[in-house]
């Protein structure tokens, strides 16, 4: 996206184009760090899954497939609204940016709400790892390991979503105040990259946690 030469830029840059390129590269490098971050716990998942395939498959049935699937649709929908917000930003349409960002935040919050409900349900079922774990099967250890990974993976993902919603709130406020134009909507675009990334992580988590080995 070519920025206008007359667009303002911060003093350390020589041009708006350089500033934009730097921002984009910076965000991509940041997303690479996030891949490494999630990669660590995904490695733990892969290791333990290969050690206890039956237990993992069996316990994953305790997760609610309808809720997980619904959440997946919600999140993909939020990526759509986010993409529309970025597009609106590139066209400089202030009101559209605001509306689509608000929708994205709304869908993100729906996702988080459902997640909270799922967590509560696990608590009630006695499937929260630690002293409150009441599962009585013979494979208690591996079952608890699955739930540790479930809470670990979805919890860290949820934390990223909360941060994402917070960031979008700030971008929305900026948009409301008319800070963006066709020449400059970089923050919208960068937060869009982040949001899409968080969505893609969920696209990995959903099958790994909810779908593999499901029998019900």
């Amino acid at each position, binding site marked *: 996206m070519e920025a206008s030469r007359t667009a303002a830029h911060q003093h350390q840059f020589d041009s708006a184009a350089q500033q934009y390129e730097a921002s984009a590269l910076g965000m991509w490098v940041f997303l690479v760090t996030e891949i490494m971050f999630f990669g660590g716990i995904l490695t733990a998942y892969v290791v333990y899954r290969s050690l*206890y*395939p*039956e237990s993992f498959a069996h316990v994953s049935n305790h997760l609610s497939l309808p809720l997980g699937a619904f959440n997946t649709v919600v999140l993909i929908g939020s990526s759509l609204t986010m993409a529309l917000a970025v597009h609106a930003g590139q066209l400089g349409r202030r009101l559209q940016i605001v509306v689509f960002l608000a929708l994205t935040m709304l869908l993100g919050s729906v996702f988080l709400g459902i997640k909270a409900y799922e967590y509560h349900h696990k608590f009630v079922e006695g499937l929260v790892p630690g002293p409150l774990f009441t599962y009585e099967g*013979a*494979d208690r*250890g*591996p079952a608890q390991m699955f739930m540790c990974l479930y809470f670990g993976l979805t919890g860290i993902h949820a934390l990223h979503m909360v941060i994402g919603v917070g960031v979008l709130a700030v971008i929305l406020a900026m948009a409301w105040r008319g800070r963006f134009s066709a020449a400059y909507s970089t923050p919208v675009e960068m937060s869009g990259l982040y949001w899409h990334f968080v969505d893609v992580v969920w696209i990995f988590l959903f099958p790994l946690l909810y779908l593999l080995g499901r029998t019900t």
Partner: protein
Amino acid sequence: MLKDLPLFPAQASTVAAEVDNLFFFLLGLTVFFSLLIALLLVVFAVRYRRRSEDERPAPIEGDLRLELGWTVIPFLITMVIFVWSAVVYARLTRAPDDALPVFVVGKQWMWHVQHLEGAREINEVHVPVGRAVRLTMTSEDVIHSFYVPDFRIKQDVLPGRYTTVWFEATRPGRYHLFCAEYCGTQHSGMIGWVIAMEPAEYEAWLAGGRGQSLVSAGEELFNQLGCVTCHSGESGSRGPNLAGVFGKTVQLASGEQVLADEGYLRESIVNPRARVVAGFEPVMPVFKGTVSEEQLMQLIAYIKALEVAAAPAAAEPQPAGSIR
């Protein structure tokens, strides 16, 4: 005090000399290259020291052959070291088949040792000279490490699994035993001795020790805990026949195969539903928490000692290569 200054450990095992030879080669390499670099630096610095603030040295062109040379040659040297050390490592990790088994449980902050014949020790391991000894070890709590410097052996000791290390002492004597993986307050107190004795003295020491043999203790537990009920060895029993199972490959219900080593036997007792044998139901009770690590070692010693009974007509397939 200086007279007693130790500069080198004793060579008290069959592998010590091999390890030391590699060490000396590396030492020679280190001394050679360190001196070479130091010498070159000093010689160049002095010979080409700056004589006036304005002097401008003549340009030197890079030389690709030189660069390749001092890349490839060190690489080849390191490959020699790699292969040599792999050979030493292979010796360190392959215990002879007739090694004497000894069982070790590490816990904060002591070593519990059990000999097959029943002798028990704390922080000491008596072994015969000239005979390979193989330690099967586990930890009751955190990670420890069994280290005997004079034998050049060291092996981490982990909770929830077995690790093994072997050695053959070559001279009688008392050799330091150290815990080498930090394990808390008394880590530096978790030390003791490996005492190597001439074979005759060792037999005498064994005989003098009181205590039930591991196999006999294991047999008692096998009956007390009710193992014999399901693992009776009769056809149609609820649990697989354990006679001769140690060291064999076992077919699992999941379709995989597993080697029935000490680790598998231990797991089958503390976590029986993990890898169930094909053709049997997952109904074995979980014994984790009911038996201690030392009792587990006794049970395993017993199971290892169970001989194959006279085979009935419809026998299990014989192992490949056996003569029948």
